[in-house]
């Protein structure tokens, strides 16, 4: 049982308050869908949650400890997929994932090729990723969810560029993760098609 | 009345045939929705249609003339929005659009600020575009549809990163364009919510 909680979080960009006094807790088996119009601050919030950006005030707690104090543990339990894919155009899909896995300290024996096959990239594993289509690059980025056993997933618009079959695949994976006591925090402008209950957090666009 | 037609078009990437023998005609007031799974070749097709890439065989005709022979006319009638936004991160949204309009030879009096306001970017016009959210950058890219009076729109997944209100705005704009005898060719993995009839072209993923 792990939990991510946030208290009194606020974010200011260029003298503009994006949100303030945010409080919530996400526990194992829960999914939090952060909603809001373009520019509301969803991405900014996610980046604060994972520790890429600093909040103006307030804290992010992982199992009741500030994430800055337990970076190692937290990093081991986290997968973050942002707007940027982190897929190098000159390396092949398989290489991209291989280096990512090693960097994350995963055992050598994860079968990257099997995962790529499952994601419909048969035969494209060794092509430089720059030559893949937008959706195929996105699939490589998402393959990380298959590769690393982590309890917290933070996903920024994961359905971008995916076709309907890939969306189905990802949705199934997310449901399975939630069943296995995982936590998911995501943003998406598309409606989620999950049978699992979904909590939502609405951010507003303030000027 | 203008029309874009294609005959016997085929595309080969790395000796892989993406599609061949493609024939279709799009006329004023028509919308063609190109569908297909990730990697089917939708983007490749669009790039051939606008003249950015070369086809392996076959021709693209604009008003019965090869687009390579009427580049000037064709360019004047075309707006292309690809996967890449063509929004420079160091320039502000207004500047980005200003230079684009001038380059397209549009009159000086187009009111960029009014368009940006309509697209919900009030107050952000002079921020460097790199500091805008994903959806806001996308809106800047799409503002081109408001700025240039062109009959042919070629849009590669225009709804990516947009929130529902922006999608509605864009859909209305597209309907209006079609009523004004415009042509639209687009790809999208999301269903279109248009009252106008939609033609579809299905591409298959071949390996």
């Amino acid at each position: 049982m792990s939990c991510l909680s946030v208290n009194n979080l606020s974010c200011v960009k260029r003298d503009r308050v994006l949100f303030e006094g945010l409080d919530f807790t996400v526990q194992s088996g829960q999914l939090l869908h952060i909603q809001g119009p373009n520019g509301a601050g969803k991405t900014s919030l996610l980046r604060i949650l994972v520790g890429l950006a600093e909040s103006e005030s307030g804290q992010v707690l992982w199992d009741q400890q500030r994430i800055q104090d337990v970076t190692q543990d937290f990093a081991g339990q986290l997968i973050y997929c942002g707007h940027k894919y982190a897929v190098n155009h000159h390396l092949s899909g398989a290489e991209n994932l291989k280096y990512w896995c090693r960097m994350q300290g995963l055992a050598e024996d994860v079968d990257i090729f099997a995962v790529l096959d499952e994601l419909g990239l048969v035969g494209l594993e060794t092509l430089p990723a720059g030559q893949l289509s937008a959706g195929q690059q996105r699939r490589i980025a998402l393959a990380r969810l298959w590769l690393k056993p982590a309890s917290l997933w933070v996903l920024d618009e994961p359905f971008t560029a995916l076709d309907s079959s890939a969306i189905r695949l990802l949705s199934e994976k997310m449901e399975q993760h939630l069943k296995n006591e995982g936590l998911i925090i995501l943003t998406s402008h598309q409606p989620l098609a999950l049978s699992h209950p979904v909590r939502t957090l609405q951010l507003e666009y303030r000027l | 009345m203008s029309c874009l037609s294609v005959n016997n078009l085929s595309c080969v990437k790395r000796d892989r045939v993406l599609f061949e023998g493609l024939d279709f005609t799009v006329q004023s007031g028509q919308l063609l929705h190109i569908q297909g799974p990730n990697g089917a070749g939708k983007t490749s097709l669009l790039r051939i249609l606008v003249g950015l890439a070369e086809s392996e065989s076959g021709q693209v005709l604009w008003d019965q003339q090869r687009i390579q022979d009427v580049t000037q006319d064709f360019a004047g009638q075309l707006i292309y929005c690809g996967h890449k936004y063509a929004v420079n991160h160091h320039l502000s949204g207004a500047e980005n659009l200003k230079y684009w309009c001038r380059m397209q030879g549009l009159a000086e009096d187009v009111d960029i600020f009014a368009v940006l306001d309509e697209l919900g970017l009030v107050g952000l016009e002079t921020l460097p575009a790199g500091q805008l959210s994903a959806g806001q950058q996308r809106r800047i890219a799409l503002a081109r549809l408001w700025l240039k009076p062109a009959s042919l729109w070629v849009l590669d997944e225009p709804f990516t990163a947009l929130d529902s209100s922006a999608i509605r705005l864009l859909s209305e704009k597209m309907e209006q364009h079609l009523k004004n005898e415009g042509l639209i060719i687009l790809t999208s993995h999301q269903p279109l919510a248009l009252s106008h009839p939609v033609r579809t072209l299905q591409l298959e993923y071949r390996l």
Partner: protein
Amino acid sequence: MQFESWSEFWAMGGYGFFVWLAFGVSLLALIGLILQSRLARKQVLRTILQEQQRQKRIQASRSKQVKGNKA
């Protein structure tokens, strides 16, 4: 024959080192190029055959998938 004996021929009037160095390295370079061309051809043949095998594998995996979908 300009030379009286083989040893004179190898000596090249005292310039043997330079003459044979020049000719030797040139010969080596040419042979190297020939070998490299040959190797490159072999490499191409190998990739073509590998590619054929890969195609077969892909076909197999796809037909399996189709069956899976039907089931």
